[in-house]
């Protein structure tokens, strides 16, 4: 579904150049869920941003659904890939109601039956109809993240990029959102790439994962390998120790 070859991402130029991602390679099968873990600054979010086209300075090859994407994205790309961001407090426009947020997204993607779709989307993410005309400040963190997920689902994508979708939330709310994401994946046969610093969350959500350190992927393994503490790279072992 999604394949990345020799991805390099950098910021700045000359002596200020920072190589944020170096030589990243991985592939995710259709319907699978893939995790990216590592400490902050290791480049895991940058990979998602590069796939999404939010960062322009990258080289390498990104294949989505068999076709190679270029730096300039075509509209059809955004119908296939969507992203959910970390902080639901920052990723929703404070002066747009839930209806406007979802309606505008649907309009931009050229849907006709916007009204029916907004109702359907809210239902999909487990929000009651009364939330439709509320503003973000009238919602709790968990409800906002549900709106952000609904917005990502609006163009009916096949791939969702999840950038720490629950790290700003309480554990009880985290459980609800993770359950919602699992349900949506099986119902809509979505493919997930999930960034997290929490190994327990990644092992719950994903089948395989990549460990990143200092802008490089140091190890790719199955979750069962992780569970049996059979990680090979010393950094993965260290990460595992820190999270028990």
């Amino acid at each position, binding site marked *: 579904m999604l394949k990345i070859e020799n991805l390099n991402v950098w910021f700045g130029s000359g002596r200020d150049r920072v190589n944020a991602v170096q030589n990243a390679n991985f592939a995710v099968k259709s319907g699978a869920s893939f995790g990216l873990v590592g*400490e*902050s*600054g290791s480049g895991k979010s940058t990979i998602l941003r590069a796939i999404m086209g939010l960062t322009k300075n990258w080289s390498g090859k990104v294949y989505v659904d068999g076709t190679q994407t270029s730096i300039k994205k075509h509209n059809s790309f955004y119908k296939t890939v969507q992203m959910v961001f970390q902080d639901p407090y920052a990723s929703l426009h404070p002066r747009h109601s839930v209806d406007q947020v979802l309606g505008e997204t649907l309009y931009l993607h050229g849907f006709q039956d916007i009204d029916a779709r907004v109702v359907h989307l809210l239902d999909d993410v487990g929000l009651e109809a009364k939330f439709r005309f509320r503003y973000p400040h009238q919602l709790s*963190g968990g409800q906002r993240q549900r709106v952000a997920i609904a917005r990502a689902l609006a163009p009916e994508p096949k791939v969702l990029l999840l950038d720490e979708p629950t790290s700003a939330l*309480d*554990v*009880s*709310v*985290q*459980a*609800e959102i*993770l*359950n919602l994401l*699992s349900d949506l994946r099986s119902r809509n046969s979505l493919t997930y790439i999930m960034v997290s*610093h*929490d*190994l*327990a*969350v990644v*092992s*719950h959500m994903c089948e395989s994962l990549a460990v990143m350190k200092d802008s490089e992927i140091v190890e790719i393994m199955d979750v069962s390998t*992780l*569970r049996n503490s059979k990680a090979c790279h010393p950094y993965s072992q*260290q*990460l595992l120790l*820190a*999270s*028990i």
Partner: protein
Amino acid sequence: MTLLDVKDLWVKFPTHQGLFEAVRGVSFTLGRERLAIVGESGSGKSMTGRAILRLIRPPGVVTADRISLEGVNLLHKTEREMRDVRGQKISMVMQDPKFSLNPVMTIGQQIIEAYRLHSNATKSEAYEKSIEMLEAVSIRDQKRVMRAYPHEMSGGMGQRIMIAMMLIPDPEILIADEPTSALDVSVQRQVLSIIDSLVKERGMGLIFISHDLNLVTDFCDRVLIMYAGRIVEVCDAKNLHKAKHPYTQGLLNSLPKLHDPQKRLEVLNRDPAWSTVASISGRI
């Protein structure tokens, strides 16, 4: 020995919908121990910490039978007297170093200022002491760090600098309000072990405010669990997984477990009765 004794603490804020009670009748004592306060956001745990230092400003209202520090009631102190308590007797480490350090002062200036406010030390003495404190929180290359500005520091370093600043006047009690939640897992442990060793060495009392139950079990002696402004359960940290209150159990069960995979995570079902039951006392 009891360092801090809080009895029947209430924190209220007037709103358009009437009086909002953020903390509702909380009582606890703190000895030379590591006491954790856990709960979800909005449960009133941070407000409890702030109320102890009298940091809640009008229109917020704090009432209590007493908040006494070594037998002296803090509620009767004037604002001027409180300034001697803050920092010197009770220190607080805030959540995010990015918002708590002054961005236009060097680290050195800030630590030296914090120290000289509470003692009559000369500049050079304060400088020596600051270097010493930075060393105590395992920061290498202290002289460079003293010259640096906060934006040149990583999150973990910033938090350690905050801890150094808070510990320099040698307080009796440290209130740490989510000191590690802005940090990476690997750095978290490091910061915690620094706080831990300092608390042990100096025999301080620690109030550790956190939402992370696993962290608290490893790190603290006693745990107060707060829900909707009240303490719903008090237990020893090592017995936290045997907690009886359905709220505590719900929080524990909603965590994904690395070595015990489940198909679905358990979701907390909130019982409206939890918020009406009177607060449990955390006094010993």
